[in-house]
């Protein structure tokens, strides 16, 4: 019961951060917000009892993806134009 409530809160905050990424003009902020969204999905994975996914998901989804995108963003412009 209490674990389902925490899972519902985590999924709601992930939804809010996904909506904010779509409306964001600064791409560096969008990458950091994608890290936050991965944090909330990691809570959901721990709540629904999948510990063997966590060790791969945290290392790849949180660490390597944001590092890779910030490395690529040095080659071009930072802000998105309308």
């Amino acid at each position, binding site marked *: *019961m209490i674990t*389902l*409530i925490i*899972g*519902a809160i985590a*999924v*709601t905050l*992930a*939804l809010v951060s*996904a*909506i904010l*990424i*779509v409306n*964001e003009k600064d*791409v560096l902020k*969008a*990458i950091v917000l*994608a890290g936050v*969204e*991965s944090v909330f*999905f990691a809570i*959901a*994975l721990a709540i*629904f*009892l*999948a*510990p*063997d*996914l966590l060790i*791969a*998901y945290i290392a*790849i*989804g949180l660490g*390597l*993806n944001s590092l*890779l*995108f910030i*490395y*690529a*963003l040095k*080659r*071009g*412009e930072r802000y*998105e*134009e309308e």
Partner: protein
Amino acid sequence: MISLDGLLWYYIVVAILFTITCALYGIATRPHIIKKLVLLTIVSDAVYVLLVLMGYRIGATNPPVVPGGVLENPVFPSHKTIVEFMHKVVDPVPQVLIVTAIVIGLAQFVFLVTISMHLAKSTGSFDIRRIEGEKE
């Protein structure tokens, strides 16, 4: 009569599906390439959580290992042991599928980021309209 557990369950599934819809809308309408790739990671993460949710049983108390760690007959376990295992433990098959999907997804994103870096070096911008020549 729907219990509170069932209502929370429906809410979680609907929220994840709505996340996927928002990210797909962003991929279709926003011009920056790196932002499109970030939104693509969100779609894949939401699909992983949805697949894990399919294998969950309400009332399960263990990750997919044997509770206690010891079987009395590992080759031919008895009927009672298997029934007890099935009532206490979530389904392990979707989790095994997703472990391979995460690793393949990393290789795919390295490939896409390399392509977009070469594209930015040859055209000077990450904007998709400037690459195609529609906007100066």
